[in-house]
């Protein structure tokens, strides 16, 4: 896949000294809110912490900020991508990251949420919580490795 007829040289992200790093900071703040709030639920599902309330309560408590984080990364991410689409499209680490991101988003708002909202998540909760933490961590790793592969 090639982005023909699009010259990123005129993209403000490449002409303005501040635009790119500002997007990166928003991306980091965004994923910290997104993943941090999901981890709060995961710790409860794993049974290691946050035991003063149920996983269902924690999902409801954190949901608006999880969504806030998701919105921030889904705005800043495509902007960063637009600075050099052909470079990113051919980067193996980027491809892995996007695949995992799509899976993690679907997983979080379907199975993860369903199990967390159930009255007694039990051992199923622990499995889902563990998978969730590993998936999100792998996305951060893949994001960093874009610059190193």
């Amino acid at each position, binding site marked *: 896949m090639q982005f023909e007829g699009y010259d990123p040289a005129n993209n403000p992200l490449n002409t303005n*000294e501040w635009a790119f*790093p500002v997007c*990166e*900071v928003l991306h*980091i*703040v965004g*994923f*910290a*809110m*997104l*993943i*941090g*709030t999901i*981890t*709060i639920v995961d*710790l409860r599902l794993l049974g290691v*912490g*946050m*035991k*003063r*309330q149920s996983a269902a*309560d924690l999902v*409801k*408590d*954190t949901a*608006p*900020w999880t969504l806030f*984080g998701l919105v921030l990364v889904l705005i800043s991410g495509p902007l960063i991508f637009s600075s050099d689409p052909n470079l990113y499209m051919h980067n193996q680490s980027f491809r892995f990251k996007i695949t995992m991101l799509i899976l993690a988003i679907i997983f979080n708002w379907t199975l993860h949420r369903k199990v967390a909202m159930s009255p007694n998540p039990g051992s199923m909760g622990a499995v889902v919580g563990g998978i969730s*933490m590993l998936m*999100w*961590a792998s996305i*951060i*790793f893949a*994001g*960093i*490795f874009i*610059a*190193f592969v």
Partner: protein
Amino acid sequence: MDLQAFMESLQAMGFATSIRESSLAYPIILSLHLTGMGLFGGMIAMTDLRILGLAMTKRPMADVHNQLRPYKHLGLTLVVLCGLTLAWSKAAIYWPNPFFKMKLACLGLVALHALVFRGPVYKSLGEMDKFGKSTTVAKFAAIISLFLWISLVGAGRWIGYWEAPQPTF
């Protein structure tokens, strides 16, 4: 001994050189540094946002703070250890960078924030819960905390964009 020479000698140590020159060690430690922020940076924000009345308002402030505390400490330890290792491995390269010094200054302010506000704010959240709202000082501490955390991320990112002046002959 001047500081730059000291940084050179830190960076020249065996383990620092092997991290700097490894194509895997550096990005893996950097990923762990960011994973620490991802997992636990959001938790710092949640405590601050709770104090500001913007998140988890159904839970008492003391509950939110006390339950998240051990994980924030774990995360901070991971982030600081990885950060220190990365800084050590390129000490002489980072030291002249003004954004690196800015980041160190921010870290100093984080320590100061903890020292100043621990008693009047973070250990007093139970008292504030009794009145159902946080004090002005607590809100101030929460805003400063959020500001410092974003400043740390910003300074960290800008380290990578500063170019050392080239010597002119």
